[in-house]
Structure formats: C-alpha cells, structure tokens
C-alpha cells in the first residue's frame, strides 16, 4: 500500500522554500529537466522524497504547479523535475535560466510502494511525460536490483523524438531492465514498435501472480494498460496507477483534485487500481 512520508508538522504550510535552478536540460521538444538546489543548506540536507511523489513549484507572479520528482531518491542533494511546458507556470518556467530563483513546497503525495513490491516482477507501463514520475522508481530498482525479479519498462510516445531519457536506456538494460519502446508515428530510422503502450503487452509472457504493474500516462492509456494486465491475470491489487487532477494546495484542503473519495494530492497521486477502478470508466469524473 502507498505510504505517506512522515513529515514534521509545519505552521506555515503555504510558504515555499526558496530554491534556485542549478541546471536545465532540454529532453525532448517542449520538455525540460530542471535541477533545483535549496538556498538553505539545512533544507538541502534534510530534504528527502519517495518515488512517485511531487513538489509544488512556485514562480511568484505565475503561481504554483504540481510537478512530479524525477531524480534518484537516494541521491541526496539532487532534486530534478522533468517538466512539459503546457500551462501558465510551466511556460514561465521555460523562460527561466540557470541561477533563477523559485519556490518549492513538498514533497507531497503517495509513492510507488517499492518496499512492499520486493520480490515481484515489475512491469512499468507509461506514456509520454508519464515516465518522469517513474524514473525515481527505476532508480530505486537499480539501487536495489536484487530485491526485484524481472523488470520490464513498456514505454510509448508520439514519435521517436518524444521519448524521454533515451540516453539512459542502455544503462538500464545493462542492469537487466527490459526496455520496450513504441511510438505512434515512426520515422525513417525507427526500427522499434509502432503503436500504443498496451500493445506492448501482446508479446509479453508474464508470471501474473508475481507481477506488479506501475503505470502513469494519459488516463486513456492507463485504462488500456490495466485492461491488458487484468486480461493476463495480473492481480488487481498489484496494479498501481498515478493519477492527475487539479492539484492546487497539495494538502487536501482546497478540494480541487477530488476523484471520488480521494484527494489526488494526498491520497494519490499513486493509487492501487482497486481504489480507483470504479471511477475509471466514468465520463467527466
């Protein structure tokens, strides 16, 4: 089950910690990775997070945006966010440079249950920017490779140019993570799969009883991933999905990110499929 990170109570929950952009890396068109450093060394020292959690990044004048953390949770002092430039805040972020200040509140939300999945085979099924919140999970697996069985990454994007972290795939493969990639539209050099992520399940031979699924991406993709997994007799309680809603306060106080009984910001973003299955196929939920 997802666990909440123990956090010391804060008397000023709305105050962001000041930080600075330490590095900006263009990943794919419209997506950048921002490395951040806290101004306060004590904060930098004590800050930790679990795979799957997110921060509220604050650009004064523009607002806050919930962005999942994409760095290695074990690597203290390093905090990265891979951001797709889409809304008000992220567009402003795109205009920032190394050294520019911003605010950080977090970490918030539930995590991929890496501890309780020890001993399992793991299928990570994600699409587009959805790989970003799973990268810390992959890092965790690499840090504890022997704790897990077979690990398969099924990843899809629109075109080959939209695939995140391609330079890391070989490293991952070296550490026995099977990486299967599909794109909607290939190009002249593309030799891989064409199609959507759920299709990557077709050739997969799973040991369903021992397999866990971690999925993040567009809701429609997650739906089909779950469908494929269930069709292969993966236990529903071993399927985890990361959901997205309008996370605005991140503390379950503002009410915006509700999904059925859940506040996605604090009960999620990572849910066990069982928790959210009844809301999955509903229009406008």
């Amino acid at each position, binding site marked *: 089950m997802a666990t909440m990170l123990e956090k010391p109570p804060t008397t000023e929950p709305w105050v962001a910690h000041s930080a600075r952009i330490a590095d900006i890396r263009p990943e794919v068109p419209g997506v950048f990775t921002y490395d951040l450093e806290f101004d306060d060394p004590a904060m930098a020292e004590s800050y930790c997070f679990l795979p799957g959690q997110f921060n509220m990044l604050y650009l004064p*004048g*523009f607002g806050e945006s919930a962005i999942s953390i994409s760095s290695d949770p074990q690597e203290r002092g390093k905090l990265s966010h891979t951001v797709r430039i889409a809304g*008000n805040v992220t*567009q402003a972020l795109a205009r920032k440079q190394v050294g520019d200040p911003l605010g950080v509140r977090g970490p918030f939300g539930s995590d991929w249950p890496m501890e309780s999945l020890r001993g399992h085979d793991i299928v990570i099924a994600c699409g587009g920017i959805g790989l970003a919140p799973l990268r810390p999970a992959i890092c965790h697996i690499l840090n504890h490779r022997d704790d897990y069985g077979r690990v398969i990454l099924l990843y899809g994007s629109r075109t080959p140019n939209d695939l995140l972290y391609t330079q890391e795939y070989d490293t991952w493969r070296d550490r026995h993570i099977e990486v299967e990639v599909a794109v909607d539209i290939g190009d002249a050099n593309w030799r891989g799969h064409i199609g959507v992520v759920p299709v990557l399940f077709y050739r997969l031979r799973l040991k369903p009883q021992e397999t866990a699924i971690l999925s993040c991406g567009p809701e429609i993709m997650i739906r089909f991933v779950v469908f494929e997994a269930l069709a292969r007799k993966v236990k529903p309680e071993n399927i985890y999905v990361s959901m997205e809603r309008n996370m605005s306060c991140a503390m379950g106080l503002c009410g915006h990110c509700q999904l059925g009984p859940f506040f996605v910001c604090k009960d999620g973003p990572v849910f066990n499929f069982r928790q959210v299955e009844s809301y999955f196929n509903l229009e406008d939920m």
Partner: protein
Amino acid sequence: MAAKPKLAVYKFASCDGCQLSLLDAEDELLAVADVVEIAYFLEARTAVQEGPYDVGLVEGSITTKHDVERIKEVRKQCRFLVTIGACATAGGIQALRNWRDVNDFISHVYAHPEYINTLKTSTPVAEHVFVDFELRGCPINKKQLVELVAALVHGRKPRVPTYSVCVECKRRDTVCVAVARGIACLGPVTQAGCGAICPSYYRECFGCYGPKENANSMSLGQHYLAAGKPSMQLVRLLRNFNGHAADFATASTALETANK
C-alpha cells in the same frame, strides 16, 4: 529587459467607455505606460507609431462594411488581439438591431436614410477575425484590464474568471435579490468580473458581462416565468448589452416565441 511590447487601442461602434477604462486606471496608468509602449491610442495620444503591434485592444462592434474590412487590417497588424467590452465581444447594445429591421431604425432616426451606410447587424469581432482573448463587460473592469496588460507583459494567462456573478455576490456577502426579494436577476447565468455591484444596490444583475461558461439562461428564464414574471420583461432583460451572445440569444428567442 526586452523591448516594451507595443500596444494599440482600436475603436469600432461603441461608447468609448472601455478604452476610457485604461485612462480611468488612475493608479496604474503611468505604470502601464512604463511597461508597454502605447503605440496607437487615438483617444489618449496624437502620436502614432507604425504597426505591427504586439497587442491590439479592440473596442466596439462591427456595423459597417468598411469596418468589416478594417478589422481584418487590424488583425494583420496585431500579434495578439484582445476584444474589450460587450460591443467587441458580443455585438453590444447596437446588436439589438439584429432582432429588428434596420431600415426601420434608419428611417425612424434619420431624415436622410440615403446617407446611412450600415449593416443589418452589429456583430462581435470574433465573427470576423480570430480573437486571442476576450475581456467581457459593459464596461470592462479596469482591474481586469490592468491584469490583462500585466499578464501580456509577463507572458501569462490573464486571470479572468468565467464563473457566475453569484460567486462574487456571495463572497461579498450580498443577500441574493432573486431569492430574498423576488427580483428577476441574471446573476446566476452572467459571468463574474464586475464585482457583483448591482445586487449590492438591491437591484437585478442585467448581464453586463454576458453569459458565464455553461450558462443555462433557459432554466433561469423558465423559473422566473413560473414565478410570474412577464416573459417580455425577461426577453428585454436578456437583450441588453450581450443579447447577441449565444446563450442569452437562445433563451430570449425561446421566451419571445413562447409569448406569441
């Protein structure tokens, strides 16, 4: 800092009130002039800088053949085109002609109809060219206008709510005039932005900001009708300054038809 964005202010058929809002932003006017280059604004300055402009604010509706052409030119000149006010956004009060025979109007007002060169309809700018953003209101709210300018200067989305006047009304603690006084009020279907002024003066909202998103004027109209309000009163209420806006127009037409 990069060069200041160039701003142009245009006028079509209107009362000037919306562009006046910029001059009425007394606390911010000089600050606005510091952050944007007011390159074309006939009501305020004689000097004219040549286009193209980064931002064009358009006041007024399209009512002549010449203006149909002129708005296309304006569009070409402006990278980002914003309509300000009910006239530019919904056709304005001039759009009342859209329900009547304009020749009848002309002969009623003008002794020499042959001099009058006008279209049968008054239409919003967006029916002629692509509009990047619409600022509602009759008149627009100067705070929203300053927010719009600030947003454009800093490259963000203007914070302009699309919810109902009721939200503002309740926040400011005004007792609902529809529920507590039985006044036919358009607040529940009208977009916020004015600050919910009218109900705080014990009178109905008459729709200056046009229909809110997901407006349901039909339901509201039926409710007032059932409460005994004359249908033509409701038709007139919906046909003020945003009568041509889709949701108001549909509801007023339905109420008018029901009356016949």
